[in-house]
């Protein structure tokens, strides 16, 4: 009897340890990265169990949502801010949340049946649009009511929708290797591309009637925004995860080999490339001073418009998220609780860090 008890106890403890460590429930382990957004007065950071509102003056915390960590609620998606003072954020728990930007109070919750939110929401005058891992695009009013029936693609969607106010269109990049154009007023399909050769996990960049997408098929592809026909393709060394960034003439995009490419928007020809080290996961930031981007190795890199590295800073931990410009600062999110958000000036000198001291 004693031996039965011993065997049963050993197996029970092993089972509990294994299931606790497996991460299979995907409720406990942070398996995504931070999302950043800002309005005129504060910065919003979504990471792991919380959405934080951060004071841009000194990096202090103004509020967090929820007040206490809920293991069943994690955030992989970046937030978006509405003109009526709401922070919209998708949870990895089948819910889209609207929070009061002033206080962090929950205004409403829009539940979806199956999907989880990895891509951020799009806020427009026509409504709030968010896509989920069930492959569906959801349209919601600013009050949290469904606007039109969800539009379904064939696979998961990890990218935020993009809008074109001129035609009241939405552009959706799906992991089914296609880009879709929808009517923002009713959700009807306007056009969709053929299989572009690889999954697309980030939003298209849009400019002057063209869409630019990076794919896991190691390509950047330019499409006509009017009908989805291809304009050009550029081959990269590795998967392209992030959205391309645009300026007047050029396009800047990184790939998982860690190469940042500058291309001519008109024909996709290569202008220059740099490879400072570590995979480039998210979108570069283009400002008047130059181009800023982060790499997985914790590098924040500033490059001149001509392709010379101005400076690079190494932060602790990993940096996956696109840098965000706020006033004169460059904000960079990391995966380290002691420096979830770092503010640098345009020369790479640190100004403040935001730490989650309660975690």
């Amino acid at each position, binding site marked *: 009897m004693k*031996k*039965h008890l011993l*065997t*049963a106890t050993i*197996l*029970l403890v*092993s*089972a509990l340890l*294994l*299931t606790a460590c*497996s991460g*299979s*429930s*995907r409720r406990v382990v*942070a*398996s*995504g*990265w931070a999302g950043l957004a800002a309005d005129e007065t504060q910065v919003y950071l979504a990471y792991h169990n919380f959405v934080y509102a951060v004071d841009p003056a000194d990096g202090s915390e103004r509020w967090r949502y929820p007040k206490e960590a809920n293991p069943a609620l994690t955030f*992989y998606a970046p937030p978006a801010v509405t003109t009526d003072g709401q922070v919209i954020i998708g949870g*990895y728990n089948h819910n889209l949340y609207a929070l009061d930007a002033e206080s962090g109070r929950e205004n409403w919750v829009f539940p979806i049946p199956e999907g989880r939110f*990895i891509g951020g929401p799009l806020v427009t005058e026509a409504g709030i649009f968010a896509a989920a*891992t069930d492959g569906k695009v959801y349209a919601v009013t600013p009050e949290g009511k469904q606007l039109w029936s969800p539009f379904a693609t064939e*696979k*998961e969607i*990890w990218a935020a929708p993009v809008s074109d106010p001129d035609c009241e269109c939405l552009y959706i990049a799906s*992991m089914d*290797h296609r880009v879709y154009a929808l009517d923002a007023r009713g959700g009807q399909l306007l056009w969709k591309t053929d299989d572009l*050769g*690889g*999954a697309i*996990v980030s939003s298209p960049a849009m400019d002057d009637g063209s869409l630019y997408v990076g794919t*896991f*098929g*190691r390509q950047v592809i330019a499409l006509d925004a009017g009908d989805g026909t291809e304009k050009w393709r550029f081959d990269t060394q*590795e*998967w392209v*995860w992030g959205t391309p960034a645009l300026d007047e003439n050029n396009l800047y995009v990184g790939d*998982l080999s860690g190469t940042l490419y500058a291309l001519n928007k008109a024909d996709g020809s290569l202008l220059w490339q740099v490879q400072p080290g570590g*995979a480039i*996961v998210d979108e570069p930031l283009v400002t008047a001073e130059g181009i800023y981007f982060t790499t*997985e190795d914790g590098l924040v890199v500033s490059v001149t418009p001509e392709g010379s590295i101005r400076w690079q800073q190494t932060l602790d931990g990993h940096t*996956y998220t696109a840098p965000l410009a706020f006033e004169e600062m460059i904000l960079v999110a990391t995966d380290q609780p002691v420096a979830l958000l770092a503010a640098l000036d345009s020369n790479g000198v640190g100004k403040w860090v935001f730490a989650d001291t309660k975690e």
Partner: protein
Amino acid sequence: MWDSFISLMINVLLFIYQMVGQNFGLAIIFFTILIRLILYPLNTQQMKQSKALQELQASKKWQEIQKKYKNDREKLAQEQMKLYQEMGVNPFGSCLPTLIQFPIIIGLYQAIIRALAVSPLQLLNLSKHINDGANLIPINNHFLWMDLSLPEKDFGLTLFGYGVPIMAIIVAATSYLQTKLMTPASPGANDQGAQMSRAMGLYMPLFMGWLAYSFSSGLALYFVVSNLASILQYALMGKLNWRNLLPGAAKTG
């Protein structure tokens, strides 16, 4: 080194996935069978050694020395060693093949889990292992009623309002069958080895069922295929012990 091995396993798994029409359930089944075939010689050797050891421990001679020297552990150990030598059985003979198989089985498990990437960091990690299979992403995780990337507790079928852990039950049942069919009947029903075997035979299937319920159901599918493959392998060797399935067989031998 280990990462390169995992990359190899993942790429083989994805190659099979592509060959079977992008069905990840079938890919797991064929991948498990392929690995089992590769490990067949080692496994056979381990099974033979293990069987010889079990038969020795079930022999009359073994039982006699257990009784005779039950109060003298040192003498008992000496007599046991003598018996091992007489019968040409190496008590550790089944360990080496198991040790060699272990990293391969762990690699198989890791390949399945990593290929089932569903979150951004998991997919980013997977991207570092894939050579030419980028066009296969995202993996189609649906097989029969299952989402292979989720534990059964997150999507399990419901019957009259209650969740029915079908895969966990199948895993527990096949584990039980495997243990029963592959354990020789022991005449020394009360010796320590037999008692431990009975305890493991009872609790291990429950343990496996619990793992199947809590981990990704892709892993549960692997457990089922692996259990059935072991039973089939034993059957091919003509060593299945059907008598163990009869009620009271363990007691009477």
